[in-house]
């Protein structure tokens, strides 16, 4: 017991060695990406990084709870809506990185910029006795009865983007599509992994609105799945990097943002099968020129997000 207590004490000493000079980064998954970015950044600049790795929701919850004594110097979320909300509340430090020159205008503002983006796709299991889908609306067909899953837009920023995009492009037809899917037995089991796992294991056939990079990675690992981008158009789920205005390490935070947007940083993003924010960095997956994207107003959509989620809930009841 004495030894245990002694070890605890040592652990405490080690843990308190976090100094004020370090850069504190709160990042949503995937973890290997944030870890690789932090490591390469430290190697390049000598600035140590404290990385808190969690889900987008918990990153934001921790940021909110810490407002009396803010800790984070950089926030990376998987949900563009988070950045829009914080920006509207005036909580972000404006910064335009030189490295963001080749990032498309839709993925940068003066307050925040995308690290990269996921595209939203249909992912289907190829081992099942089921035709290959090509369009979103195909999934209302009898052949996909009780086969479809979808991430919950309330829990997945990516699924929310898809619903927003479809609704702004197709209007009421989009809500009709959602309720037809529901009538065809679609389930909405939770966040992204909860929607994808039943398809991987063959309990269900196809995900409506999957985050593509996870599925592309799994297909590369040998899973019997295919990723389809409908020609009628899909949406991107950009991953914002933000610097909270409360940071006391503004210079280091800006350097971190520069690094993530540098060719080296963007190559690390590409390694995780995520679409790099810069159009001049080669993607290891379907890139900017291969995707048909629905153009919609992210800021307006974010302002209406609550109404959109309510409309989704109504359509699936």
């Amino acid at each position, binding site marked *: *017991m004495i030894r*245990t*207590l002694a*070890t*605890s004490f040592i652990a*405490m000493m*080690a*843990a*308190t060695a*976090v100094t004020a000079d370090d850069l*504190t*980064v709160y990042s949503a*998954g995937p*973890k*290997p990406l944030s870890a690789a970015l932090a490591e390469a950044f430290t190697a390049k600049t000598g600035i140590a990084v*404290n*990385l*808190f*790795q969690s*889900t987008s*929701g*918990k990153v*934001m*919850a*921790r940021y*909110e*709870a810490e*407002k*009396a*004594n803010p*800790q984070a110097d950089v926030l990376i979320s998987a949900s563009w809506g988070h950045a829009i*909300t914080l920006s509207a509340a005036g909580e972000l430090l404006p910064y335009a990185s030189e490295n963001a020159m080749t990032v498309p205008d839709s993925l940068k503002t003066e307050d925040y910029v995308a690290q990269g983006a996921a595209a939203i796709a249909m992912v289907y*299991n*190829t*081992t099942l006795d089921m035709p290959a889908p090509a369009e979103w609306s195909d999934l209302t067909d009898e052949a996909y009865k009780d086969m479809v899953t979808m991430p*919950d837009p*309330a*829990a997945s920023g990516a699924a*929310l983007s898809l619903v927003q995009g479809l609704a702004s492009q197709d209007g009421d037809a989009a809500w009709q599509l959602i309720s037809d899917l529901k009538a065809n037995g679609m*389930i909405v*089991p*939770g966040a992204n*992994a*909860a929607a994808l*796992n*039943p398809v*991987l294991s*063959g*309990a269900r056939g196809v995900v409506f609105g999957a985050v593509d990079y*996870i*599925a592309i*990675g*799994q297909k590369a*690992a*040998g*899973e*019997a*799945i295919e990723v389809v981008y409908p020609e009628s158009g899909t949406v991107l789920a950009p991953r914002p990097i933000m610097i909270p205005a409360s940071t006391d390490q503004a210079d280091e935070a800006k350097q971190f943002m520069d690094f993530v947007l540098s060719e080296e940083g963007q190559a690390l993003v590409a390694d995780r099968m995520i679409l790099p924010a810069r159009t001049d960095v080669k993607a290891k997956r379907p890139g900017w020129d291969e995707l048909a994207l629905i153009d919609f107003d992210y800021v307006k959509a974010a302002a209406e*997000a*609550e109404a959109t989620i309510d409309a989704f809930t109504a359509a699936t009841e």
Partner: protein
Amino acid sequence: MRSQRRLSKSMMPISAHKPSGGVLRASLFLATMGFAFVVVALPILAVILFAIFPKLNELSFIGPFSNLGPHLNDPRLLQAVFNSVTLALSVCALSTALAVSAALLRIKLGRRGAIWDVLFLVPFLVPPFTGAFAWIQLGQRNGFIEQLLGFNLSAMLYSFFGIVVVMALNLFPVVYFTTSSALQIVGQRYDEVARVFGATSVRRLFRIVLPLVGTAIVSSNLLVFIMTVEEFGTAEILGRRADIDFVVTYIHEKLSDWPIDLPGASVLSLILIAIALCAYYLHLRLTKQVTTSVDEVQSQGRKSQLGTVGTTISHIALGGLAFVAVALPLLSILLSAMMQRMSGGLVWSNLNFNAFIALFTTHEDALSAIATSLHLATVTALITVTIGILAAFFIVRWRSVLSDPLDFLLTLPNALPAMTLAVGLILVWNQAFWPWTPYNTWWVMLLAYTCIMLPYPVRMITSTLRQLPMSMQDAAVVYGASDLGVILRVNGPALLGVSVASGFIVFSIASRELVTSLLLTPPGFETVSTFVFHQFDQGSVNTAMAMSLVSVLISGGFIALANYLNSLRPEKGH
């Protein structure tokens, strides 16, 4: 000097029922209360204040109560409260039925039944999140059961009933351990007397045995009730599929879904506190009705009291329960870990141990995550059991006006969703005005774990202490035993079993705690559960499951070892 004081005291007519003075007891009391205040009351107070002052996170007190009205009028909430309470009552009923039957069988087996004590700890070692996933893997369409046997359980699994069964299989050990230690104390004597006088076995069970362990059953049911209301993993994973809303899933939605609403989550947490308060009062009234204590501690039955046939049948019955509650989920986790491709199905070419090998070769952080979790779990177990024993004495024996509030306070952490508690801890400790703060260090994890786990030892030890005969303590005090002597020498040996058991439970749960860890981990700090979660999140299901299994085996191994060492200890009075 102390002996003099004791001497003069022993010459007066005394009753240990009344609180009596003493510097030692006063300082122990202050230490226990102070500990409870810092570890439990502060974060809970912060949550309550946050519900009242929605800008508390910015240390501002504007707009008091502005948040309560809109949230309490939410129509979704009423349905969620109803679902949560119904679920909790159903889980209590099923766990009690399973656990009490198991405990009655096990106690008859004497020492030969020890294997079941170890096995029934396993459900605690499996995180609810992983456990629910294991059941889905087994029971869903094209799941393991369908691939092997040709049918699936999905209609049953994704229903209210399915959630009740999965949770009860996870929680029944709480009742099992409390009841079987109570049965051990009660012994067989009263039962024997009744048998000699010709009572039937059913009559003996309901008139003698169950009433004697009533306190233990009621007290552990309080834990099960509150844990069910608070538990998130199963409610989320299975509840979403069954379209059933619970208070705890609603709270989590506010904490992590867009738009994040921390004060709203605090308001809903108050409702959970209110539910817990009602349950606690019901428990107090029931306890008053059922409390019995025996006048002499019985020695443990060392030999099986059953014949060969009875022993075999008992082992088969307990084995059946262990198969469903322990073997099936573990097997499902093992198969999920061995599957190279989830879409590849259960064929030999798709199964190997690569995920386990990768854990120790390519994932360098896996081993340190295991070490961190074991370390935290051990320290948490030692601290909570120590406080649990002290608290039990202040709640049961050395009563004062603060006894019941202390009891309720130490039960409360179980009623709050762990994530709300984590928010409370951030609100308390992430303040610039503290000269030193545990926040962002290892210590905040220990604080969080200690707070969450304290209810287990407190409940278990309190209920056992209630049953212990008062006569021994009175005798000891008359002969001049000090308060510490009463704890260590008199009641200690009788409490040892339940203390060790509660320590194991704390160790098990702490070694896989997920929810607070996800929100509170200091930068660069990883536990088993956060490792599993991140692997799962990235789609590496087999790595996540391999890590879960390794952690279950290591923690289980520690418990089995400790249990074995404990059994080598010479029994008193033999």
